[in-house]
């Protein structure tokens, strides 16, 4: 028998890091959701006074960046935004060197968004401060999954027995990966729906209790929650399905929404493209919780930051 000894190169991430949902314990998820319910950006609490939170963004972002920033400031922290353009990243500085530099200027935590899967994990292995994943490539987007869970629990009594449909480009979606890990943990049944290019058969192996269908009607019938995803038009290039076909077969319309439960809610991590993955009527309709999700992003991220810096009281 062979045994792998602990390797010196692989340090454990600092306490409070949030790299993904997959390896988070149930009680940590529930603890974060509970803490988020007690957070209110309108009633700032100086839990993180004098703490320095660096927002390191290698990709464009409106919602995630602004809500992490407002969350940090609502807790009294100082924030600094570092983006790939206008920083030494443009000059070819490596991810780790950027991390060491930010640590040296006094960062107490780093919130990182990066186009490469696993970038936050690399940083967390080499830094002694908490690293929070704000989206890494196609891998995970844990803060989005937590705010989605927070949103669902505001409208549904519990996760138990809920039916969720996730529609669209599953393959490229880090939001879907995190949501599947989180929701299936608590007994939610999820149906993934889209053409094979976007929902390959392997998608069902992500978590237990996942089902795939190619037919939107089949996916929507009787569900409690509908999660939509942005369609990037350029990803249809070279695929069998045309944009018109995609819209005809998979667009969320008011008529299709009636297949779901009467109290079903519609969610979308944004940015939404009206007329593509959903109609304006659905986006602005009474069942839409799209703006509510954005709103819930702030208390959820306040909870994540408070936990990261050991102030989860």
């Amino acid at each position: 028998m062979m045994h792998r000894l602990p390797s010196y190169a692989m340090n454990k991430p600092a306490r409070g890091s949030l790299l993904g949902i997959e390896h988070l314990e149930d009680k940590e998820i529930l603890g974060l959701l509970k803490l988020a319910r007690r957070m209110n950006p309108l009633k700032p609490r100086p839990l993180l006074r004098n703490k320095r939170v660096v927002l390191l963004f290698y990709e464009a972002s409106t919602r995630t960046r602004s809500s992490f920033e407002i969350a940090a400031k609502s807790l009294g922290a100082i924030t600094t935004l570092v983006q790939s353009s206008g920083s030494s990243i443009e000059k070819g500085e490596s991810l780790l060197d950027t991390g060491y530099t930010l640590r040296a200027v006094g960062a107490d935590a780093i919130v990182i968004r990066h186009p490469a899967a696993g970038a936050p994990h690399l940083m967390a292995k080499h830094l002694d401060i908490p690293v929070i994943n704000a989206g890494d490539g196609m891998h995970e987007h844990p803060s989005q999954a937590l705010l989605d869970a927070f949103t669902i629990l505001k409208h549904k009594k519990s996760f138990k027995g809920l039916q969720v449909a996730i529609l669209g480009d599953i393959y490229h979606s880090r939001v879907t990966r995190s949501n599947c890990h989180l929701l299936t943990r608590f007994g939610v049944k999820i149906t993934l729906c889209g053409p094979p290019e976007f929902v390959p058969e392997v998608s069902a192996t992500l978590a237990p209790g996942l089902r795939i269908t190619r037919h939107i009607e089949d996916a929507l019938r009787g569900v409690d929650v509908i999660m939509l995803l942005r369609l990037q038009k350029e990803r249809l290039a070279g695929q069998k399905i045309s944009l018109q076909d995609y819209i005809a077969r998979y667009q969320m319309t008011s008529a299709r929404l009636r297949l779901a439960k009467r109290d079903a809610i519609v969610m979308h991590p944004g940015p939404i493209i009206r007329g593509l993955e959903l109609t304006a009527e659905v986006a602005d309709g009474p069942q839409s919780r799209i703006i509510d999700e954005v709103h819930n992003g702030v208390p959820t991220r306040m909870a994540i930051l408070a936990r990261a810096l050991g102030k989860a009281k």
Partner: protein
Amino acid sequence: MPNDKSKPVALLIKGGHVIDPAAKINSQMDVLLRDGRVAEIALPNKIRGGSDEKFDARGLIVAPGFIDLHVHLREPGQSHKETIATGTAAAAAGGFTSVCTMPNTAPVVDTAEWVAWLRHPERAAVVNVFPIAAATRSSRGASLTDFADLQRAGAIAVTDDGKPILDDDIMRAALRLGAELNLPVVQHAEDTRLTENASMHEGPTSFRLGLRGMSAAAEADIVERDVTLAQQIRESRLHVAHLSTSDALKAVRRGKRSIHNARVTCRVTCEVTPHHFTLLDRDVGEFDTSFKMNPPLRTPADREAILVALADGTVDAIATDHAPHATHEKQVEFERAAFGITGLETALALAITKLHREHKIPLTRIVELFTAGPARVFDLRGRGSLARGNFADVTIFDPKKRWTFDAAKSRSMSRNTPFDGWQFTGKVVATIVGGKIVSSGD
């Protein structure tokens, strides 16, 4: 040859158990090496005549010197990763007396001058270096190199390793010219049109990690195509490098059957790496770049098929694909990290620990995969067996010795191995090249 005490001209290896599959020897034998050749091999205590030095091999296996068909020693041009001196020192430590070097250096080894440069004594190689030259100019896949010229300079095969030959006409032309010269064409089988931006095997693990995957078909399709082309060309020789999928093995088996077909006389051979018979795609864990290589680690079914093929004779050789990289080329985002791991110093230990002890493949077969098998693949005359008159290349190992691999102590310049800290059974005790001990003990 100078009769220098530090370089004995006669060395008697006494009391060991010789395994020499090519000579069908598997018993206690003494071996006398003299003037760089095997002078005598005989039953214990039967060798008369003088020797300058004796090696006590009691309790040890004495095998023909191991041959690695696939190493990257990084010179010319990438000496921050490895040099011929450090790479061959690692080879010696791992029991290899001969290594075949890949041409994907900077510049690419596509001229006779570079082949000669690789073999020059100034490179300070401590084991035999057999260059494999580029099959096309700069390995761009457009026009063939001068095979005959390269062969005269010492190249033992041609390949565009890492940049596989995708164009049917070029591959056909390479196999044809190779057939004329009896020169094997080595193919890294990967349809690179299907693997753009991919960094591991395509499957549940790549999907979960959000990484683009390389499908098994991207390898198998090229092997299928190459075998079909080879079968159309009399006496062509195709060698499939670091085969990693069950489907590619099927194609190789089809190719090997043609040897028994009078009308089709191509020779199809293949090699497998220790990491592909040991590890799985899911071992990349949370983006550990020590597990990133090309071809990537595959599924349990692929590994099972490889184990069967190692046992049943379909696989001709174990080759390491030793691919050293500097730390800064590996300590980056997984998708940006360089492909490849070092392997020279862990190959025998993995073969004994995994293949012999865990999967019950006999030691004789394992020795064959390191010696007679690879010698046949590239026709390395006088090597791969301890028959009298052959080169005095010998690997002596202890199949029962337990030890822990410490990458920090590696002879290679690089540390990119997934096996750091692994406990193994089976260790090289001495490596003898041309009658001289080039590596021994710890």
